[in-house]
Structures are given as structure tokens and as C-alpha cells.
């Protein structure tokens, strides 16, 4: 019981640290690819601390609550995803719950941004929603392939099954590839940074955020990166202990970053069509294979 | 107890006394039909329990049955006689304030004669007598259709007359042939000897009779007169024609096919004809813009259903058919009466002109709604029980052909629902134009409409009121030996 409580407290912290590390790392790596020097890896953290102490504007109660909901939703999501064998709440919710809990964060942002009454926000939300509709198709196919293959909806069981034998990526390479292909869309990084496109719609959903709001959304983003990649590692790369899990996450993240950093930004309709084409087909084929065998 | 011949004699006497009463006061004459038919109705109600125990055979002239004109008052006869006098009574109340165009005394005479004809048809036991009453019915209805002497009315009457008299001639041919074969005119007597004649000749006779009665019964394709006549006649007459006159045609067909000829082999064909009539009637009704014409076509459809049920030829089928006769008579009389007064208030027969009347004439519209719901066959109205019985009767036969038939009949119901629901919506939910001066109908109009509406609901909720009589009537048609026995004695 005590271990559980401790892990409930510790796990979000670990996730936060890893998330911030990835955030900083991504800026550094992209800068290097662009032949720039780039900011220090701790820059995002510094930014957040700075933002917390800045004054900001608010558009109403929902504007505040949405942001809080968004971050809280991400925090609890961490508790359901096994991290190197630690999964304090795995018995309270399975993959289905995880899929649904992933909703809370964007919903919070959308509600909060909605009250801001800024058209840029509305456009941003609309893009976020459409993009989600795009990547959900291959995402769900991939998840279903895994669940069908292992005949369980529990993520812990999936991980356990992989650790006893081969990783899922060897049985289900196509869904894994599909998941990997849409990972940037889920994370909102290039070439799928349509939602926040600073040059077009002034950062979209974040346009009205300043100070603590921006701080919370940045933290949420850090969690988000952690969650999406941890999910991938759990589903396809067989989890692992604390260290191997982290290494796997790093590999996945860097691979995604390297491949995608060189692409220009897509238009939203191109993004949807992209998601519904190759990743969806690959994942679907994978699902059919998983269903038949 | 009461002599059933009063049922025919009283209205006849009253009919011709109308001019006499007219001498006393012009105001009295329009109440004469009410009185006559009220007495008739009471007598027939009083007769019902007695007849259910034992049918009454009245011989006229003192001879015993095969040799004289006689009345055979069985359950079927009394059922239809009650229905006829009842609806006639209600319609005559309606006519008090509805018929204003002179010469009103002629209207009332003809109306009573029509009643005499109709009651005579269902009560008589003599086939030539049947023909005579039939002619009384037809001639008075030709004249009544042309009562307004307007363009439509005369044209409709002309067409009705030509087709009707061809039909009457056919009936007469049939009667002549029957007399030629058997040398008797008594229906029971003919029925008892029917096997002794050559079946082919007999069938030709039957064909003439079916065609003749079929014209009045509006079997497709003999029903071309019906939409014209029903839509052009005064609405009270339309109600009678739809509610009663065509039912006498059905009665004629049923009597010939079941009792006299025992022609079971043709029943399937009759059922098919009924189905065809149903489909075509509903299809044509769907495309009408004229409310009365629509109701007339709907009558064709309903008659088709009645004849279809008649063709099922099980006791339940005949029962259902008779039930449908009752429920349709009530509903269609109600619809014509209500629609007639709406037309009177609005001044146009087009369906679109009824828009919004639900707010101006709430009771009339409400009654109209009940009538149409009953015709569609929605619970808790009378039409539901009768339609359910028909469907059940058809299913009970367990023949695939009837299964297919009833499926088609149900599809026709959808068409029927289509136009009736549209009209109900027009009444209540569409905005009408120039409705300011329209007021609710007067008492004489509302009373019959309200009574009919209540009857529809009462029978729908508690069908046992009439099912006993209907069952006995169905037995009368199916057990011809019983009928022959009543008249000729013995068996």
C-alpha cells in the first residue's frame, strides 16, 4: 500500500523530468540539425519557472479550469501506464481507460481556449480536433491489433506477455510502424505542428495563454510526450526495467525527431489524408493479420 | 313480438306521407325521416336478442315459404338492418340543417326510399324481391346524386345511372336464368336445389349476378361510378352511399356466392379481386386533391378489404369482413359528414383549403381525425380490431397465397396511412387562409358526428358489443343448411 502511494507520487515526477528532458533535447537536436547551437537542455524548465512568476490575463472561470483539467488529466494518465514495471493504478483501468483518459487533456485545452474568444484559438482547436481524427484511425488500429493479438485489454498483461518472449514489434511490425509514423502527429511536432503553427495562427490554442497558463500547458506538453512514447514502448517494445525503459523511450524519441525534423509543415487536409493513407493501411493490415492468426 | 316487416313498411309509409305532412307545415317534413328511422332503429335493436335465439321468417300473403314472398330476418339481416337504420338515423339528423336547397321534401322522400331499398335488400328472402329493392335503392340514389342539379352532380348521376342499370339488367338476367333452372324465386329453395343444375350454366348465372351486384359493391373494375357519384352527391348522401349502399352490394355478392350458389371454388378469385380493388382504390386515393373524391376512393379500397376478407371463407374471415363493414360504415359516414360540413364552411373541396380548420372547427376536426385513424386501423379505434381480425383470418388459413395477399393488403394500408395522415396534419398543423369567419358546426351537424365518433371508440375499446351478432351473422353465411332450414323448415 505504502509502495503504491509512493509510486503514485513519484511516477508523475519521473514523468515530468523525462518529459522536460525530451522537450529540451528536442530543441537542442533540431537546432543542431539546423546548424544552430541551440538552447541548453534545461531551457524549458527555466522557461516554466519564469512563466509561473509572470502576470497573465484570464478570460473567465472556464479559461482557468480547462487548463487545470488538462494538466490533471495528463498527470493521472501517467499512473495508468506502466513505467519500467511500476504501474500503481493498472488494476483500476486498462488500455480502454487509457484511450479515454487521453481525451481529458485536449478537452481541457479546448474548453479553456474556447472561452478565450480568440479566432486563432478556435482555428487551433478545430485543427487539433481534425488532426486527432486523422491520427486516431491508425492509432486505434494499432492498439486493436495489440489487444487482439494478446487477447487482453490490460496494458500490464501486454507488457508481461512480451517480457516472457519476443517483443510485440516482431509479431506486429506493421502496427508498430504505423504508430511510429503518427507519433509526431500525436506529439504535435514537425511536420504536424499545424495546431500551434506560430506563423499562421499565432500559436493557435496557446495564443491567449501567458504566465501560469503557458507554464501549465508546457508542463502538460512534457507529460504528453512522456505518455505517448511510454505507451509505444509498452505496447511494442516490451517495457523493461526503469533504465531500459528510459533508453527505449530515448531511442524512439530521437528516431522520430531525426526523421521528422527535416520535413516542412503539412496543411491540415494533407495531414488527415496522410494519416488515413499509409499509417492506416499498415495498421489495418496488421490488425487483419492479428485477427486471422 | 314486433313484426320485422315493419322495418320496411314504416319508412315506406313515412316516405310517402311526407308531402301530406308538408301540407300541414313545411317545417315538419325534415323531421319525418328522423322519426321513421329512429323507430326503425329501436325496432331492430329490440329484435336482435330474439333473432339471436331464433331467426324470424315472415311470409307475406299467408302461404308457407317457397311459394310466397317472404322476409328472412337472420342475424346478418338484422345486423345490416340495424346498421342501416342507425346510420340513416344519424344522417337524417345531419340533413336537417345540411339540406337547405329546395325541394327538400323530395330529398327526404328519396332518402327514406333509399333506406327502404337498403333494408329490403338485406331482409328479403326472395330473389326477385331483392332485385326490386335493389332498384329502389339505385333509382333513389341516382336521383339523390343529382339532387343539386349542378354540373358535377348530373354528370355523376348520368354515369352512375348508366352503369347501374346495366348492372340491374345483369341481375335480372341472373334472376331469370335461376327461375328458368329451378322454377322458384325463393332463395332458400334455390339454395337447396342448387346441385341439381348444370354447373356451367349455373356459373354463368352466378357471373351475371356477381357482375350486377359487383357494380353496386364497387369491385374493381366495376367501380368507375363510385368516385364520381360519392364526390358529387350532397355529403349526407355520400355518407349513406359509402356507409350503406355499397355494403348492400357486398351483401348481395355474399348472399349469392355463399348461400345460394355455395360457390367455394370462386372465393379465391373473389379474394384476389378484393385485393386488386383495395390496391387500386388506395393508389387512386393517394393522388386526389379533392377531399370527397379521396374519401370515395378510400371507400373503394376499404370495400376491397371487405371483399378480400369475404373471400377468405373461414368463419373468422367472414366475421372479420362483417366487422370491417361495420367499422368502415361508421368511419366513412363520419368522415363524409365531417368533411361535408367543412366543405360547406370553407366553400371548397380541395384538401389544401382544409388547412388550419382544426382550430376553427375543433370538434368536427377531432371527429374527422378519429374517423381517419380508425380507417387506417390504429388502436384504440374500431378499425384496428376489424383489421386485426382480417389479418388474423388470412393468416389462420395457413395458405401461402393468403400470406402473400395479406402482405400486399398491409402495404396498401401504408398508402392509406399516407394520405389520411396528411389530411389530419392539414387540419391541425398547417396555417390556413381566410379562416376568420369560420365557426364550429351547429348542433344538428355535431350530434351525428359525435355519436359516430363515440361509437368508433366504444367498439374499438370494447368490441364485444357487436362480436356476438357478427359471429352469428358469419355463421349464417357459412352454414347454408341452417339458412335453408329456417325458411323451408326441417333439414
Amino acid at each position, binding site marked *: 500500500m505504502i509502495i503504491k502511494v509512493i509510486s503514485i507520487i513519484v511516477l508523475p515526477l519521473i514523468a515530468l523530468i523525462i518529459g522536460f528532458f525530451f522537450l529540451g533535447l528536442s530543441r537542442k537536436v533540431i537546432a543542431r540539425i539546423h546548424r544552430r547551437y541551440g538552447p541548453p537542455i534545461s531551457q524549458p524548465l527555466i522557461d516554466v519557472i519564469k512563466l509561473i512568476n509572470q*502576470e497573465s*490575463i484570464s*478570460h*473567465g472561470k*472556464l479559461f482557468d479550469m480547462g*487548463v487545470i*483539467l488538462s494538466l490533471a*488529466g495528463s498527470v493521472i494518465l501517467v499512473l495508468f501506464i506502466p513505467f519500467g514495471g511500476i504501474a500503481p*493504478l493498472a488494476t*483500476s*483501468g*486498462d488500455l*480502454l*481507460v487509457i484511450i479515454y*483518459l487521453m481525451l*481529458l487533456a485536449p478537452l481541457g485545452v479546448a474548453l479553456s481556449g474556447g*472561452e478565450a*474568444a*480568440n*479566432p*486563432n484559438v478556435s*482555428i487551433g482547436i*478545430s485543427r487539433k*480536433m481534425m488532426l*486527432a*481524427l486523422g491520427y486516431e*484511425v491508425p492509432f486505434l*488500429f494499432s492498439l*486493436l491489433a495489440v*489487444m487482439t493479438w494478446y487477447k487482453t*485489454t490490460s496494458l500490464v498483461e501486454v507488457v508481461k506477455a512480451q517480457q516472457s518472449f519476443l517483443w510485440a514489434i516482431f509479431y506486429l511490425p506493421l502496427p508498430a510502424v504505423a504508430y511510429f509514423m503518427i507519433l509526431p502527429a500525436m506529439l504535435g511536432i514537425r511536420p504536424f505542428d499545424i495546431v500551434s503553427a506560430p506563423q499562421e495562427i499565432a500559436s493557435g490554442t496557446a495564443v491567449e495563454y501567458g504566465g*501560469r497558463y503557458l507554464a501549465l500547458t508546457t508542463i502538460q506538453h512534457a507529460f504528453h510526450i512522456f505518455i505517448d512514447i511510454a505507451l509505444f514502448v509498452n505496447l511494442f517494445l516490451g517495457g523493461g526495467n526503469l533504465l531500459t525503459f528510459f533508453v527505449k523511450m530515448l531511442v524512439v524519441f530521437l528516431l522520430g525527431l531525426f526523421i521528422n525534423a527535416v520535413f516542412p509543415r503539412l496543411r491540415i487536409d494533407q495531414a488527415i489524408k496522410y494519416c488515413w493513407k499509409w499509417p492506416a493501411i499498415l495498421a489495418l493490415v496488421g490488425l487483419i493479420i492479428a485477427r486471422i492468426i | 313480438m314486433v313484426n320485422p316487416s315493419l322495418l320496411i313498411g314504416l319508412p315506406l309509409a313515412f316516405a310517402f306521407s311526407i308531402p301530406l305532412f308538408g301540407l300541414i307545415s313545411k317545417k315538419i317534413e325534415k323531421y319525418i325521416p328522423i322519426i321513421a328511422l329512429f323507430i326503425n332503429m329501436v325496432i331492430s335493436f329490440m329484435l336482435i336478442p330474439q333473432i339471436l335465439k331464433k331467426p324470424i321468417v315472415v311470409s307475406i300473403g299467408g302461404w308457407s315459404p317457397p311459394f310466397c314472398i317472404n322476409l328472412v330476418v337472420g342475424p346478418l339481416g338484422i345486423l345490416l338492418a340495424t346498421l342501416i337504420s342507425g346510420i340513416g338515423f344519424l344522417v337524417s339528423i345531419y340533413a336537417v340543417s345540411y339540406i337547405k336547397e329546395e325541394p327538400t321534401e323530395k330529398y327526404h322522400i328519396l332518402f327514406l326510399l333509399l333506406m327502404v331499398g337498403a333494408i329490403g335488400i338485406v331482409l328479403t328472402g326472395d330473389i326477385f324481391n331483392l332485385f326490386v329493392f335493389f332498384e329502389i335503392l339505385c333509382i333513389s340514389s341516382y336521383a339523390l346524386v343529382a339532387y343539386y342539379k349542378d354540373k358535377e352532380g348530373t354528370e355523376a348521376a348520368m*354515369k352512375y345511372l348508366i352503369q347501374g342499370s346495366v*348492372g340491374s339488367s*345483369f341481375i335480372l338476367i341472373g334472376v331469370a336464368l335461376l327461375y328458368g333452372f329451378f322454377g322458384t324465386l325463393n332463395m332458400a329453395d334455390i339454395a337447396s336445389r342448387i346441385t341439381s343444375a348444370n354447373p*356451367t350454366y349455373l*356459373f354463368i348465372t352466378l357471373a*351475371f349476378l356477381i357482375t350486377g351486384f359487383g357494380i353496386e359493391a364497387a369491385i374493381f*373494375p366495376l367501380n*368507375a361510378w363510385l368516385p364520381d357519384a360519392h364526390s358529387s352527391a350532397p355529403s349526407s348522401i355520400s355518407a349513406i352511399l359509402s356507409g350503406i349502399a355499397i355494403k348492400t352490394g357486398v351483401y348481395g355478392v355474399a348472399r349469392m356466392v355463399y348461400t345460394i350458389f355455395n360457390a367455394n371454388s370462386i372465393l379465391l*378469385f373473389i379474394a384476389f379481386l378484393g385485393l386488386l380493388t383495395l390496391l*387500386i382504390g388506395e*393508389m387512386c386515393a393517394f393522388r386526389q386533391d379533392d377531399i370527397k373524391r379521396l374519401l370515395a376512393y378510400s371507400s373503394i379500397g376499404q370495400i376491397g378489404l371487405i371483399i378480400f376478407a369475404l373471400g377468405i371463407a373461414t368463419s373468422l374471415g367472414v366475421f372479420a369482413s362483417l366487422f370491417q363493414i361495420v367499422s368502415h360504415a361508421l368511419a366513412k359516414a363520419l368522415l363524409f359528414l365531417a368533411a361535408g360540413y367543412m366543405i360547406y364552411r370553407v366553400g371548397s373541396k380541395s384538401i389544401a383549403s382544409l388547412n388550419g380548420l382544426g382550430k376553427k372547427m375543433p370538434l368536427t376536426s377531432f371527429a374527422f381525425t378519429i374517423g381517419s385513424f380508425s380507417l387506417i386501423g390504429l388502436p*384504440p379505434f374500431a378499425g384496428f*380490431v376489424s383489421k*386485426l381480425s382480417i*389479418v*388474423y383470418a388470412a*393468416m*389462420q388459413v395457413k395458405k401461402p397465397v393468403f400470406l402473400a395477399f*395479406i402482405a400486399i393488403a*398491409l402495404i396498401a394500408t401504408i398508402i392509406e*396511412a399516407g394520405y389520411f*395522415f396528411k389530411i389530419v*396534419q392539414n387540419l391541425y*398543423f*398547417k396555417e390556413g387562409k381566410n379562416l376568420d369567419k369560420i365557426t364550429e358546426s351547429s348542433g344538428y351537424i355535431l350530434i351525428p358526428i359525435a355519436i359516430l365518433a363515440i361509437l368508433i371508440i366504444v367498439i374499438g375499446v370494447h*368490441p*364485444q358489443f357487436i*362480436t356476438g351478432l357478427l359471429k352469428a351473422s358469419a355463421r349464417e353465411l357459412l352454414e347454408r343448411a341452417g339458412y335453408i332450414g329456417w325458411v323451408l323448415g326441417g333439414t
Partner: protein
Amino acid sequence: MQLITILVVSFLGAGIVYLTGKFSGRVRDISAVLVSLAVVILVGLAYNQKIYTNFYSLPFLNLSLSLRLNYLSWFFAIIVAGIGFLSILFSLEYIKDYQGVGFYYFMMLFVNAGMLGIVLSADFLSFYIFWEMMSWGTYLLISYKGGKAVAAGLKYIIMSVAGSLAMLFAIVSLYASYGTLKFSSLASLLQIASPGYILFLLLMFVVGFGVKNAIWTLHTWLPDAHAEAVSPFSAVLTGVLVRMGMYGFLLIMYSIVGLSLLHKLGYGLLNFNYILCWIGAITIVIPTFTALLQNDSKRLLAWHGIGQGGYMVLGIGVATSLGIAGGILHTLNYAVCGALLFFVVGAIEHRTGGVRDLNELGGLIKRMPVTFIAGLAGISGLIGVPLTNSFVSKWMIYKTLIMENYPFLAFAAFIGTWGTILSVYKFLHNIFLGQLPEKYKDVKEVPLTMQIPMILLSLAIILFGILPGIPLKVISGIEKSFGVEPLSTTMFGMPKEIGELNLINILAVLLVAGIVVYLIFSLSAKSRRVNQDDNYAAGLFVPRGKYQYSARFYDQAYRIIGPYLHDVVDDFYYWLVGKSKSSFQIVRQIYTGNINTYALYILLFLTLLIFVKLGWGL
């Protein structure tokens, strides 16, 4: 006796309410509320009882009409009564300015009574009678508003009549075959029937119930009807009336035919349940994405009504204990959310003068906060956000689909949820969020009688979301009566052998996380409250009143999916009606108006008769 009392109170109550309306509008309103409340109480008191009574007999058909109460009927009866009561309460203010209010209350109560009759019937004849009474009552209520509603009402009733006639066909055929219409007797008699006959029966009933439950290809009446009916009745329509079809499915499939017989219908994948599942799946996907394209708030919800119905059909189609329970539970959950959302739309209509166009609204959160919260609860419930009610039922359906190895059906269900998220967010955003247009500056919150139903339903969404054990207890009783192995449940979710779901834990961590985040939030530098016009526009001038991005909210997505979502079924029906009309036109040319032709018909008929006799020897 108790059941008869319920029906008598509800039917007579309707009449009394109408009559009192003739004297005083106020008394009528109060009595309408009282009658519907009395029905709720009476039904509530009947909980956990088993009753069977004959109440009427039709000797000429050898039939008696009877009523019964069991878990299944109680479950539906309480939904009917509850939603009926709330919608009457909601109507008080909403309907005030309409014409024919007495008629409205009468029909509302009458339709409710009809629905109670349906769920309490113990034989098919009374079932059918109440069913038809409900149907035509509904038709009158849909058409009530006039205008476009007239066409919607007609469309509804024609489809409904077609469905009921299919059902009547099956019912009468049952009676002709077995001589009884009692559910309990039929259930045992049908066990020896041939699979072909059962399939025919099920097909007919699926058409009959499918029209009501608006399964795909029979759904086309629903968007029009829901959109054009008055909002309190739309709530009843979507929440309970449409779900009478669901009750019918449960009744015929599990209560009468039974699970063991269902499994024998068909070979391999081509069996009844599997096909029903796919119909359910299609019913989820197509309507939900069609909803995405709607700009009329009620139409949008109406399409969701169809889509959510797909989940229920899918759930009961899978025919596992978990799936059936999920389907039934979803019926309850959707009744709550659907009714709530229509109340919300009704509240908006009430305050903005009947505006339903999503592109014209916006920013109303500042004027109608209670309605907004209700709307938020409603859409969360509809999506199935964790800790709201639909989450549990959807979870059960997904879970069983995956465990039964139907990943594609599961995918349809999942992607349907995503379509739901998109469209209901648009619904919420375009009404409540974004900028408040000038013309709605003075809009006020709706009166209390309209708030109460919304608040109660919002609470129900949360309550059933956290404590799904309450309805699931009744549902396991229903399953027991079906002869299906009942689902074992706990108060807060599922026991471990069924799956990992513990809602109280999720609630607890969410609360803790929320509090922690809130603490961080409130400890950081304060923010300044600004006006809605005061926002960042990249240095551009902000035009007042025209500063709204909501029209064609998901434009790019519409362009991609729009062409595929054309309602071909509806087109087909219109084509059919058009063709029938023109063929009727041809048919009626038979009556040429020329007397010579008519005489010819007579002669032809005579010769035909004779030829038929001589030729076929009939």
C-alpha cells in the same frame, strides 16, 4: 392491480390535465407535473416486484390482454417515467407561448402512458396496441409546431406504420401458429420452432423495432423528427421513445427467442447476431460522422441519437453477458445525456428566440452558466469521458468486442466516439464558447423550472459515471431473467475477473491531481480578468461583433469526408415515393371519365369471370 393503477393514472391523468386546461392554464400546468410525478413514484414503488395480471379479454379472438412487471420492464418504465416527468417540468416555461398547450400536455402524457403500456405489456397484442397508440401520438406531437414539422411528422408516421405493420404481420403469424401471444408461453413454445421461422419472425420484428430505434437504413425519419419537434419532446423522443425499439429488441431476442436459439440462426459468420452487430456498427459510424456536418444544433444531436442507438444494438448483438449489459446500460445513459442535451438546446431556443443555427450563436457561457454546465455534462456523457455515465457502458461494449475477437466492430465503435467528440465539441463551442454576439448581450439564464431538469440530469450523468453499480444491479437482474449468466459487478466498476475498471480510484487520483495542479495554479502569479474583445490579434484591428470563427468549424474535414456521407438511404426512399406517386398517377388513368370505357369494363369483367371459370376451372 398496481400495474393497472400505473396505466390508469397515466392515461386518465392525461385526460384530466386536458380538461383542467379548459378552465385554467395554471392548474393544468401543475396537474401535468403532478400526474407525471405520480407516475414516477408509482413506478418507483414497484421496484423489485414481479407482477402478472390480465386486464382485459377479447373472447372473439380467444385472447386476453395482460400486464407484467419484471426487471426489464421496470428498468424501461422508470426511464420513461423519469424522462417524462423532467420533460413536463421543462415544458412549463418552454411551451408557454405556443398555441394549443392543453393539446401538447395531453399528448405528452398520452405518449408517456403509451410507452409505459408498451413496457408493462405481457402479451404481444397489448404491446402492439400501446405501440401504435404511442406511434400516432408521437406523430401528432412531432407535427405540433407546424411548418417544417409537418413534413417531418408525416415522414415519421409513414415509416413507423410500415414498421408496425411488419411487426403486426409477425405477431399475427405467431398467434396463428401457436394460439397464444403471451410472452412467457411463446418463449417456451418457440424453442421447438424451425430456425427459418424464427429468422422470419426476427426479421419482421427487426424492421418494426428498427424503425423506432432508427438502425441504419431505417433511420431517415429521425433527424427530421427530432429537429422539428418541440425540444422537450425531442428529449423524450431521443431518450426514451426511440429506445422503445431497444426494448423491443431485448424482448424478442433475449426474453422470447432466447440466447440458445439465437446461436443456431445461421452458419459461421453469417448469423443473425453478427449481422445485427454490423448493422449496429454502421449505425454508429455513418450517422455520427453525418452529425459532424450539421449546422443545426438539434439535427446534430438527432444524428447522434441514431449513432448512439448503434452502440446499443452493437452491445446486445454481441450476445455476451457483458455486451448485453453494456447495451442496456447505454440505453439508460444515452437517455440521460440525450434528454439533457435536448433540454440544453431547448433552453437556448427559449432564450434566443428559437435560434438553432450553430453559426449564429456563441459565447453564451457568460449569460447562461447553468445551461453551459448542463451542456458540458451532456457532451461529456455523450462522448463517454471517464467518470461520466456513458464511459462505463461504452467500456463494457468495447471490452466485450475485443475479448470476443471482433476488432473491426470495436474499431467502428471507437472511431464513432471520435466523430462524437468532434461534433459535440463543435456543438458546445459554437453555442457557449467563442465570442458573444452583440444581439445576445441581454440574454438571461433560463428560469428555475427549466434549470432543475438540467441539473438533475447532469447529476445523474456524474452519479452513474462514478457509481455504475446502481443501474448494473438492475441490469444483472434483467440478464438473469434472460437466462444469460448475469454480470457480476461492484458498485464502482467491474470486478477483476471481468476487467480493470475502478472508477472510484480514477475519481480519487483525478481529484488529487486536480487539487495539486490547482494549488500550483493559485500559488503562481495572479492573472488579470479581461474583456472578450481584449485579446491578441497579431497587431490587427479587432472588429466588434464579427470576430467569430465557427462557421464550417471543421471545413477541411468536411471536404474530405462530406462526399461519402450523402444519405443515400433517404434518397432511395424519396425516389421510391416519387416513383410510386407517378405510378399511382398512371393507375388512376383507368378511370377515364368516359362512360363507354366504363361499360367496357363491366363487359370485360363478366367475360373475365366466365373465362376464369372455364379456363382455369376454379
